[in-house]
């Protein structure tokens, strides 16, 4: 409907808020960098931001802990959190919106009606299907009912975090409420899965701005995750990887090897089976990430990670494979992949990388032989 013409563009909005053209171009450059694009894409992003209208966003909360919303407001760049909030016209979010009750629901329904087919639906949380969905009600309606209604008029859906992407902690055994990720409920809309507990703030901002900038979804992997952020394992971008390759490991927490920053594989690090950007983008504007701060990766962006074995148990306890193969096998099981072979994800996308992987596997097997299992 005739909603486009009234809405101001990002560029107009930024100028109104006192930002210069230079600021704007820097923003576009950050976006390009964070979406893994070359500098030639900067112009394209700038053009899109200048000329496209602002996209309304509805952000629903179901079974969740709000860590995704918290992470989102931690985003340092692209630009600052308040600008991002303004850019996307965040019309409904239980966490931040001014009105409550009927007035809150009015905001949502106004947007669903006025921008039918145009708004982005962001979902934080899983949907309980147990007991007719009565384990999560908002304004007297079930999350299931609310999701179906909101999804119907959405242009695209973003599944924030592990709750919406794979059910997360409430879906761990025995999943008492039948907590269900949204892609198992909504089948007729494009859904971007952005797993992690929570996802990195800058990744969340990057995904949403990609969608509103280009007017299309970012390129996704076979699990519908944005390749820009989920193509590599934490293991592959970990600065402690040389210690792993050299067979140097912390034996337990706070031992001499831990103090030297050796690899945490033997104290349970799930980095070898976890696809995420923690090692490259890091957390909270690049300050650190779990491994850098001495604790292994718990694999929070992988499907069913809560049931992938104890946190402090190393992956090699699964029999029959060397470290690397084992790690990939576990990862493959975790993500439900069926393709045979090692490293099914993007790390094997080029021959050169395949060779590198092969070398690492050999090295990993050598290391494995040195481990006192």
């Amino acid at each position: 409907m005739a909603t486009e013409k009234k809405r101001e563009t990002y560029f107009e909005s930024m100028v109104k808020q006192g930002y210069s053209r230079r600021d704007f171009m820097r923003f576009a450059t950050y976006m390009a960098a964070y979406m893994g694009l070359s500098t030639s894409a900067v112009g394209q992003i700038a053009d899109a931001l200048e000329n496209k209208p602002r996209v309304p966003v509805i952000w629903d909360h179901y079974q969740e802990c709000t860590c995704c919303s918290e992470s989102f407001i931690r985003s340092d760049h692209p630009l600052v959190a308040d600008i991002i909030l303004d850019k996307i016209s965040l019309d409904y979010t239980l966490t931040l919106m001014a009105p409550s009750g009927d007035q809150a629901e009015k905001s949502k329904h106004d947007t669903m009606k006025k921008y039918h087919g145009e708004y982005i639906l962001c979902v934080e949380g899983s949907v309980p299907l147990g007991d007719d969905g009565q384990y999560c009600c908002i304004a007297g309606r079930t999350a299931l009912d609310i999701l179906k209604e909101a999804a119907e008029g959405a242009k695209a859906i973003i599944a924030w975090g592990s709750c919406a992407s794979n059910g997360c902690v409430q879906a761990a055994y025995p999943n008492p409420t039948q907590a269900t990720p949204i892609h198992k409920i909504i089948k007729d809309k494009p859904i971007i899965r952005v797993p992690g507990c929570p996802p990195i703030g800058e990744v969340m901002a990057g995904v949403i701005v990609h969608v509103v900038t280009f007017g299309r979804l970012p390129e996704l992997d076979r699990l519908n995750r944005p390749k820009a952020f989920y193509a590599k394992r934490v293991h592959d971008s970990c600065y402690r990887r040389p210690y792993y390759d050299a067979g140097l490991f912390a034996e337990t927490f706070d031992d001499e090897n831990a103090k030297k920053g050796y690899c945490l594989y033997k104290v349970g690090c799930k980095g070898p089976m976890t696809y995420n950007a923690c090692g490259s983008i890091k957390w909270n504007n690049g300050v650190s990430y779990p491994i850098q701060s001495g604790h292994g990766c718990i694999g929070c962006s992988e499907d069913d990670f809560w049931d992938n074995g104890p946190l402090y148990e190393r992956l090699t306890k699964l029999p029959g494979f060397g470290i690397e193969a084992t790690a990939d096998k576990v990862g493959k099981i975790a993500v439900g992949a069926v393709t045979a072979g090692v490293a099914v994800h993007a790390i094997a996308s080029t021959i050169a990388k395949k060779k590198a992987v092969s070398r690492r596997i050999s090295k990993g097997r050598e290391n494995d032989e040195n481990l006192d299992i």
Partner: protein
Amino acid sequence: MAERIVVDPITRIEGHLRIEAEVKDGKIVDAWSSCTMVRGLENIVRGRDPRDVWAFVQRTCGVCTSIHALTSVRAVEDALDIAVPPNAEMVRNLMVAALYEHDHVVHFYHLHALDWVDVVSSLKADPVETSRIAQSISKWPKSSPGYFSDLQKRLTKFVESGQLGIFANGYWGHPQMKLPPEVNLIGVAHYLEALEWQKEIVKVHTIFGGKNPHPNFLVGGMACAINTEDPGGLNAERLAYVRRLLEDGKRFIEQVYIPDLMAIASYYKDWGAIGKGFGNYMSYGEYPTNGYADISSFKFQPGVILDRDLTKVHEVNHRNDDIQEFVNNSWYDYSGDGNAGKHPWEGETNINYTGPKPPYKNLDVDQKYSFIKTPRWKGKPMEVGPLARVLVNFVKGDKETQEEVNAVLKTLDVPVDALFSTLGRTAARAICAKLSSRWALGFYDQLILNIKNGDSRMANMEKWEPSTWPAEAKGVGFAEAPRGALAHWIVIKDGKTANYQQVVPSTWNASPRDPKGQRSAYESTLLGTPVADNNLPLEIIRTIHSFDPCIACSVHLYDEHGKHITQVDNISVCTI
């Protein structure tokens, strides 16, 4: 005749909360608080490695992130009799302090301020007068007429765009909005500045715990090894980073948060007599400085105050039957007498939703009406939170707390009684943040002194292996979450978690009535609250927000055959 009004969803909180209230002659005469979401975390952690449980229950809440993890490792350490090294204790204190600073500031500006600050009115402010007021209350540098003028232009254009986003349908122009336009403009300016600042203070968590939200913890200490001579551990650069963050945090709280609170509160002094409640307060205590076992060393002291009696503090005991939970009005069944209470170590949670079939307009409040259970201390309802923390310290004679409280009372020119109110709760939160930001520098200095003296231990791994554990052990871990008294109870059998229960702050405050018909804090404090317009629930959300709700839901348990299990207890879901 009374009219029933419903507020669902309550926004700017964590979780799913619904309030139903009866209004008669412009005042609330009765109220019911209901949590409408459940996940079942406590059931999920049964059978798992106790060393892993902190990560599961940390996901209870992503807003007060870290405090559930800390409480969990404390419970396991209590059960297994593990003392953590002094460095780990200080690092944990620093993380709690950073959490308080973050959580209280975000609550004030992003979750509570829009109940008091009229965004639209700020468009009419005179920037010169705004600057004069700002400079008269604080030395915070961003206070020039030009600064406020630029902001006002941004806001004007934002409003003119017609897309108001999170500000659409707010309570702008409501008769209860009483700030002059200039103070509103200061409020909006600092709303935006606080949004920028909040992502900085959490970096304390990132340095020690690797990420925020949901930093990592460890049974026995912390995982962030110290090595001042190697890039692999906490070294001088990392520690200097923490120091800078703590100083910035303290400055923001002292120069922005506190002056804003006082300026805004001075226009709402009538709220010092609204939202009083029953007057029982409980704090578990926080910030150990000489080992978690030495409660006398806590900076925030534990204790109970009854009937607003500021002469006596009663002792808290987590291990006897003083604390019990009831389900007479909650969607659970108990074996045996359904009206009897159970101590969390013996608790059981059999979910049984008997509320109306969705979609529904009203709950049947004569029946069970919430997923939250009802905890009681010696049979009495307790209010928990920053006000309880401050009052207990105040009565126990903590000089710093007394100075801060007296300063607030003096500046606002209100009596001590004004503390027992919606306004008092909001002011006490700011006092907690200020004290925490000051004490954090002390914890930091103690950490540095320890390292300087050659102690680099960060984790006690002597009892890491389950083979060193007794066949059966029970433990309780407690903490003062930003929102109040929090405890986890664990039973360990044969190296596994046999039972796990959480009673979280919002369980105390948001729960339904007990078998004696006694209201919990939300329901009690809403009584007598004026309501100017039944269609606009501004006054209700002011009082509810003064608690900073983090809605706890209860676990319900089924075994793999779909049968109810009678063991585990409450599950909390605190979502902002």
